[in-house]
């Protein structure tokens, strides 16, 4: 009779990296579906381009490093990076934007640091930041929700816009975006920022077309869908609750302080919670097992730090959304956080 013995965590479910990554993609699906329903089909083209680029660049680079690449591609991590980056960028951005971003994420941010498990920075967010500071025009061309777009954008138009910059009828993204009265963006954070810059108050800005109930719901629905996907991951124990919970609580607390001092100048906590990439960040980006903190206390500190940075950058900084910057800055602090939150070895007294 052979006794089964295993190493210490005695985990019942034998999950391997590919299984976890597949479930992460599954958790992203509701958000992607809602996004495509509201904002058009461009997001699928971006995801396809991103996955193709990620797999190709990972394979080429591993071949250059003379490492076996079949397993690395089969573990789905490159694909998760690609999908996260693709859903972070405007869905009608030109094809080369996502190709450059994904190749940078995989080659520079992941493989140059030594591949899976060795990277310091979250590849998808580093790629996003690269794109945002390199191509600010393309990266802020968010479309209004479909019901408010001036011209119906068909699937052929979508393809044509992404690959040539113009729809079949010859309209550019800017024309489709601006020909309606006012802007409607996937991330209205930017509009609030601009309005505050020219001296408007938030209550005035919220009365404009962009913030009519119909349109503002766009980003809220997407956020709710990512929340649902995130809760699924929590339930399946793919991710632990420490980081999302501390991040979201931190968002509420930290954004309430400026809001309480002057509600006319700073958006409300609720608004922070359901706009931009808050939910995507909380459940899918901050919880990256490689670049996030690994201790319990550390995870809580990491989530709070991210929340503080997001609120500071959103309320006082120059960029409309801040999750990517906050995640990168918090990633740098992770070794320090882990060092100071190392759990005591069982049985050893406090020294």
């Amino acid at each position, binding site marked *: 009779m052979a006794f089964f013995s295993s190493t210490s965590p005695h985990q019942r479910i034998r999950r391997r990296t590919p299984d976890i990554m597949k479930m992460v993609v599954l958790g992203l699906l509701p958000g992607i579906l809602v996004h495509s329903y509201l904002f058009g089909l461009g997001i699928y083209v971006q995801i396809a381009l991103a996955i193709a680029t990620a797999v190709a660049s990972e394979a080429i680079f591993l071949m250059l490093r003379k490492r076996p690449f079949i397993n690395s591609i089969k573990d789905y991590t490159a694909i998760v990076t690609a999908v996260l980056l693709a859903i972070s960028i405007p869905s009608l951005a030109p094809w080369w934007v996502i190709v450059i971003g994904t190749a940078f994420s995989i080659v*520079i941010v992941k493989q140059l640091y030594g591949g899976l498990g060795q990277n310091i920075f979250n590849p998808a967010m580093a790629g996003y930041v690269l794109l945002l*500071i390199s*191509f600010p025009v393309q990266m802020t061309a968010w479309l209004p929700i479909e019901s408010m777009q001036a011209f119906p954008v068909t699937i052929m138009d979508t393809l044509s816009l992404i690959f040539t910059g113009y729809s079949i009828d010859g309209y550019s993204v800017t024309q489709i975006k601006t020909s309606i009265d006012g802007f409607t963006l996937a991330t209205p954070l930017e509009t609030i920022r601009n309005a505050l810059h020219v001296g408007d108050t938030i209550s005035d800005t919220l009365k404009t077309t962009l913030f009519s109930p119909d349109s503002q719901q766009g980003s809220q629905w997407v956020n709710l869908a990512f929340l649902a996907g995130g809760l699924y991951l929590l339930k399946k124990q793919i991710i632990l609750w420490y980081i999302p919970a501390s991040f979201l609580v931190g968002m509420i607390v930290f954004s309430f302080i400026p809001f309480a001092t002057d509600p006319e100048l700073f958006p409300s906590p609720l608004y922070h919670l359901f706009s931009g990439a808050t939910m995507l960040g909380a459940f899918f980006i901050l919880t990256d097992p490689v670049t996030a903190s690994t201790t319990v206390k550390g995870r809580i500190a990491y989530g709070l730090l991210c929340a503080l940075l997001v609120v500071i950058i959103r309320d006082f900084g120059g960029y409309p959304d801040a999750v990517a910057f906050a995640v990168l800055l918090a990633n740098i602090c992770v070794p320090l956080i882990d060092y100071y939150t190392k759990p005591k070895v069982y049985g050893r007294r406090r020294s």
Partner: protein
Amino acid sequence: MTQENKANATIANDMTEEIDAEEVAPQADNAAIYKDLSLQGLWKNNPGIVQLLGLCPLLAVTNTLTNALGLGLATLFVVIASNVLISLIRHYVPKAIRIPVFVLIIASLVSCIQLLMNAYTYQLYLSLGIFIPLIVTNCMIIGRAEAFASKNNVKHSAFDGLMMGLGFTAVLIVLGAAREVLAQGTLFDGIETLLGDWASFMTVSLYNTDTSFLIAALPPGAFILMGLIIAFKNSIDNILKK
């Protein structure tokens, strides 16, 4: 082989005792010393990509080839002149106060170059801005003063300054060219501000684009490209070893 060893010994002794290269190395070894000095400055001990000295100006001003070339030439001038002057006075400076003396010499040389650039290359002077006076703080210059010029004769010090300066300038040029091509698709843009109007034919436009790759012109791009250049250098070294 013996020649090389002796030359290496001269270099190795830099950091320890005051040794006059002329006394150590007989006349016949001079060629070997110069060869070794060039190799050290341009490749093996390159201030930019091996010693990683003077990174601040290196990364900050290389957004165009013209800026890189301008700062490289200014640094080259300062490092040669400071090496010569410090080598000349090396027997008269008390050891305890040598560093302040070196800094004073370097600072006055930098003031000279700053005034010269203000007078003759005003546009370039404006675009390099604070980084001309900051040549004073370039550790490469004080490093050569301390490690080499204060222990070696004038001829060798001057040659060492030339080679270290050229090595530094070469890195600046490579980085500046790479960043300018990536960000703007040009080479030698604004060269007339450095060399005068006759040089404007040198400006090459490699490709035209509405959307420039801005990161190459920004500090993160400089860091990334610098890392790639160092990696490239190391990989060449690895190939040469085999």
